[in-house]
């Protein structure tokens, strides 16, 4: 004998949908109007509403830098910024830096230098490095390290990220260092491990 169970409500009915308002954003050269709640961060607007998932959500608290995007050419943490406050800004994400056919110099350098392992922090690293180049304050290795400290790489690809950024700074004539930064030009600091002999 079949029984029909009628599900009783488990709790109070769901509240009304969050109030949304139109927010106009200018992203990678394109204008968009989104209907979003005021508490939507720029990061969530990019990922959840525009499908621009290159920008990553790491810590969501401004500590890891995975969400770094460029706003009017300046790097910021999109996780700590409300989308609604960026109506007059020009936003650039990793998707807007280059195309698959024509990578930006930084994107190419990250590949050439093997500057990532899992790749999760990479869009943030590249956007941050682009911001660093735009700022024009870093002239030395030590300064690049310091001014890239807002981007954490848990795989520990820092030496290769550093050499990728240094190469681009060098190629664009932004630093004058004798050291050659092209991929493979520097000796690895740690000797490769010999396979065990049988």
């Amino acid at each position, binding site marked *: 004998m079949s029984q029909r169970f009628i599900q009783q409500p488990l709790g109070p009915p769901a509240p009304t949908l969050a109030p949304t308002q139109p927010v106009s954003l200018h992203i990678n050269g394109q204008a968009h109007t989104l209907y979003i709640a005021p*508490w939507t961060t720029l990061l969530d607007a990019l990922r959840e509403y525009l499908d621009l998932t290159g920008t990553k959500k790491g810590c969501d*608290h401004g500590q890891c830098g995975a969400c770094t995007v460029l706003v009017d050419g*300046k790097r*910021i943490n999109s996780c*700590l*910024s409300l989308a609604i*406050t960026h109506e007059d800004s020009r936003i650039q994400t990793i998707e807007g830096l280059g195309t698959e056919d024509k990578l930006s110099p930084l994107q190419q350098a990250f590949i050439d230098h093997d500057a990532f392992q899992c790749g999760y922090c990479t869009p943030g690293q590249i956007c941050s490095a682009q*911001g660093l180049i735009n*700022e024009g304050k870093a002239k030395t290795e030590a300064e690049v390290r310091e001014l890239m400290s*807002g981007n954490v790489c848990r795989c520990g690809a820092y030496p290769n990220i550093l050499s990728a950024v240094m190469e681009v700074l060098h190629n664009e004539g932004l630093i004058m260092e004798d050291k050659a930064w092209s991929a493979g030009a520097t000796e690895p600091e740690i000797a490769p491990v010999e396979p065990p002999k049988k």
Partner: protein
Amino acid sequence: MNTFTFSQATGVAAAVQDNAAHDGAAYLGGGTNLIDLMKENVARPTHLIGLKKLGLDAIENLPDGGLRLGALATNADTAYHPEVEKRYPLLNQAILAGASPQLRNMATDGGNLMQRTRCYYFYDLATPCNKREPGSGCSAIGGYTRVHAILGASEHCIATHPSDMCVALAALDTTVRVSGPNGERTIKFEDFHRLPGDQPERDNTLEPGELITGLDLPAKGFEKNFSYLKLRDRTSYAFALVSVAAALELDGNTIKDARLALGGVAHKPWRDKEAEALLIGQPATADTFRAAAAKVLTGAKGQGTNNFKIELAKRAIVRALKQATEMNQALDANAFQNSNP
């Protein structure tokens, strides 16, 4: 995050009015601390007032030779402003010692003063905290206290103010300009932040609804002899365990004027004018610096896991004053032997 309404203010008066019209309203500057606190449910404003369009982002020379920092100028634009780099390099150093480039691009100068403690227990809703919930108790006392106060704490709160920028602003005798329901007024920097006492929920002396509009730096920037020394658990992008803003005006080897303020050690940037008085008129030697350091830490009280900060602070003061002195002076090579006690 709780739900809230948002409005973009178009002028200071409109922002203050909007604030008065909404219970539970808060001003939104760069958001680097407020949005984070909202995500943690530590802050739950019901109405946010955006300040971006107020136009208070200029950095301008004042007729008296000083410099006015608009409250909405970003920390990055302030640090790298040519007048700040040239005339107030101590402020440049302090700002660049804090946060990350991304955060400095967002964070505003007014907001830097308004940021709240990074006490772990303040952030942890599962633990009592008098600052978050007055009267509930202090979980830091008897807890893990590496980032907590050694000076000026109370039985109700041992939190520290986390700013680097504010330590330099305290040393430089900044004036805070505010606007509120009762008009405009100025607050001396030393009176802006407060000690916890029995009201640790109050970080500063702003009245309800008041908005910071600017920071006025006096003409004297101590650009020749200064140091911002920050000691922390990693070399970049970490809050200070102890930081020292030291600024000297030297006549030969004699100290004509001195400023000394510490960060990471108290509920407010800890400026010590009595220690400054011990420096003024004295030769710039390690003995002089040690005497000033001893004065600053008189009455310091460790909380257990932060006891090390008392000795660390003393040594940091001596080192910062030495760095400030040595910037452009060839000193007697023996003057600083054994300068680290």
